[in-house]
């Protein structure tokens, strides 16, 4: 078989042309395109929404169905991307022209890394809520979504941590009271252990949840110090943090933390262990409120692998005063997530309509509120408890409603002030202290060095 090339010159020319063509295609694929997208219609079009949450696609479909009652001509396609794959997926997608129109952002490293690809949503918020829009949204949610003066996303919901959730049935069964101090916590765990029942479970291989526990301990040692250090106004190698890490270590040595915690993940390991009744306590925040309801609890237990799931009442309790200083451990929180509109979107107006409806209208926020997964950021919107059915209202309703009232005054951020390097340093500190390969003092020094390096790198 012969191809019709008669001379070397023709062949070389073709070879060079093919090479140049392929390289150009490769370069075009690799290069970024700074073209801005077009605005399009605000009431018609297709909006592609990518996010790690809602983690349940049925929930997203419910949001979209409610939205479509008002805007039937905007089609919204939700693409669920696992949180562990989110950064890897979004970086090239947002740099290309084939990425989403709307995408999830959370305070901290995501806002810092992907905020440059988002529209400034402040004008959108102003058009929806008026010039005093900031006073109508939870302030902690606005600050968490703002980076370098730009509102990178409209906050949809907020979450707060610093609480423990307990299995009320197990505490009743062994005649135990929720612990308020470290000694009481140790006693509770001893009783559970004597009865062959797991006590406290944590997925200590993941930085975010380790940080929640560490921040709660730090707030017990010296309220507000963690936030001060996060802002760079205090040092991480201060005796406060050394004490915090010492108490963290104590959780491992005194038998509070389950064996193998350093290799466990909060999701699915710790979550499943708690929901299947193997452990009686878990470190979770307000996002766990959804499991106080019979429907969500039954679904969650079933998803954890229990056939014929029988829901049990879970109750939030304050993090114990583990330092013994008499301080009530303050809660801390952020915007759970916000909806950003990609600046390259070709349907920006429709995308803004969708983000605006969920984040700034009472209808949109009520849908969020009733899920009890994340708390609404628009002030004045509360979960409708007439439609929400607790597993055991007699033991759950009061602590849950108290919790939701309490978070209204929270002003300490959770992740918003920390970047990925510092979060990574927290994980290293937590794991090295937990495993005994570093002393609390050594880990605190390393943490401070990491914070200084991160501060220097970020100018």
């Amino acid at each position, binding site marked *: 078989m012969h191809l019709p090339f008669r001379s070397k010159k023709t062949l070389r020319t073709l*070879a060079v042309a093919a090479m140049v063509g392929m390289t150009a295609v490769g370069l075009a694929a690799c290069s970024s395109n700074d073209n801005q997208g077009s605005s399009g219609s605000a009431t018609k079009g297709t909006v592609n929404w990518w996010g790690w949450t809602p983690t349940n696609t049925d929930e997203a479909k419910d949001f979209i169905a409610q939205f479509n009652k008002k805007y039937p001509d905007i089609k919204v396609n939700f693409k669920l991307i696992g949180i562990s794959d989110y950064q890897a997926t979004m970086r090239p997608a947002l740099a290309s022209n084939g990425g989403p129109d709307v995408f999830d952002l959370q305070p901290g490293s995501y806002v810092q890394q992907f905020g440059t*690809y988002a529209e400034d949503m402040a004008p959108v918020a102003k058009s929806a809520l008026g010039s005093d829009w900031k006073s109508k949204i939870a302030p902690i949610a606005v600050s968490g979504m703002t980076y370098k003066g730009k509102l990178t996303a409209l906050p949809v919901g907020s979450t707060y941590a610093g609480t423990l959730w307990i299995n009320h049935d197990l505490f009743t069964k062994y005649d135990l009271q929720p612990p308020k101090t470290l000694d009481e916590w140790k006693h509770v765990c001893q009783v559970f252990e004597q009865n062959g029942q797991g006590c406290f479970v944590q997925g200590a291989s993941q930085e975010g949840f380790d940080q929640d526990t560490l921040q709660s301990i730090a707030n017990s040692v010296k309220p507000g110090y963690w936030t001060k250090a996060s802002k760079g106004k205090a040092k991480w190698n201060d005796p406060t943090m050394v004490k915090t890490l010492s108490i963290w270590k104590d959780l491992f040595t005194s038998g509070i933390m389950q064996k193998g915690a350093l*290799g466990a993940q909060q999701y699915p390991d710790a979550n499943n262990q708690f929901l299947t009744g193997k452990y009686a306590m878990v470190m979770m925040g307000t996002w766990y409120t959804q499991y106080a309801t019979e429907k969500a609890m039954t679904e969650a237990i079933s998803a954890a692998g229990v056939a014929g799931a029988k829901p049990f009442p879970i109750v939030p309790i304050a993090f114990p005063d583990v330092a013994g200083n008499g301080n009530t451990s303050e809660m801390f929180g952020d915007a759970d997530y916000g909806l950003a509109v990609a600046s390259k979107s070709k349907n920006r107006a429709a995308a803004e309509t969708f983000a605006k409806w969920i984040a700034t209208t009472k209808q949109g926020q009520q849908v969020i509120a009733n899920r009890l997964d994340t708390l609404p950021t628009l002030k004045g919107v509360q979960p409708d408890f007439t439609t929400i059915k607790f597993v055991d209202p007699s033991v759950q309703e009061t602590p849950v409603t108290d919790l939701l009232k309490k978070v209204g005054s929270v002003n300490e951020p959770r992740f918003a002030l920390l970047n990925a390097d510092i979060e990574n340093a927290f994980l*290293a500190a937590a794991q090295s202290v937990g495993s005994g390969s570093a002393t609390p003092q050594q880990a605190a020094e390393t943490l401070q060095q990491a914070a200084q390096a991160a501060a220097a790198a970020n100018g």
Partner: protein
Amino acid sequence: MTETTGVRGARMSHSGGTSGRPALRGGQGNASPARRQRLQAPGLPWILPALVLGVGLIYYCIGYTGYMSTLNWDGASPNPESVGLNNYVRIFTSDPVFWKAVWHTVVFFVVTFVAQTALGVIFAVMMHSRIKLGILYKVVVFVPVVLAPAIMAPVFRQMFSINGQFNWLLEHVGLGALVQPWIGQESTALPVIMAITIWQWTGLTFVLYFAAMSQIDQSMLEAARIDGAGNFRTLVSIIWPSLRGTTVALAILGAIGALKTFDVPWLVTIAGPNNATQFLGTYIYQMTIQLAHVGYGAALSIILLLVALAIAIILQVVGRERTREKKGAR
């Protein structure tokens, strides 16, 4: 092996011989050199797409990674900062996690290669012994090779957790004292990862040794038997030396595989606890994707590439020298 064949083919082509390779080109082995050169030209367009893809994608990307390794860049910023060789300096002088990953890679390679080789040879010898249900055993040994690590990882996470089946088994065979959080502590996490890898890849080692043993001249084995060699002596003095080529190839594959190790440690232990199962592959992923230090991750990737090349060359050279020594001794 490929290179040797190529050299042999070229020699035949220059000599203008009529046997072997020239006949593959349509029986034109007797053509004059000028005629032959003209006939070779049409081959270029055939390989051009692969050449362009190879050079344009693979080598271009390697070059681009090399360029990125000189940057301080988060992968998104339009203005990356050029830092020269600073990323490399940092890696070699002030990054303990890198050296931890290198150490884990060395340990991982040595342990998994030795274990897989020993098990592979033993299984292959056993299967050549015409045992009953041999086909069934072959399937059982080989099945882990075709199972995706992403599917097996949750199983192993459950199996080796503190409440997992492995501890349950230990308790029920009277070894309750050994119960521990296997993947939740630094001392045992790496051995678990190595055990999983051995389980997964021994099947491939076995198949290659099984095939290589089929090539051993039966008369040599019979001669050994006549000379009074027993099973062990035959295995050590006849079979094992005949498998040298396969062993070298497996060593190269194992070494490069160890350098590229990512899926099992990431999916089972997330490279932890406390970096106890950190490898170069997982560290590159953490640096590049999770922490957005794309320049630093690119420098790690270039180091990984150079080490892989160096190991492949060293093992090839050592393998050849030993083969020459062996031939010389004969």
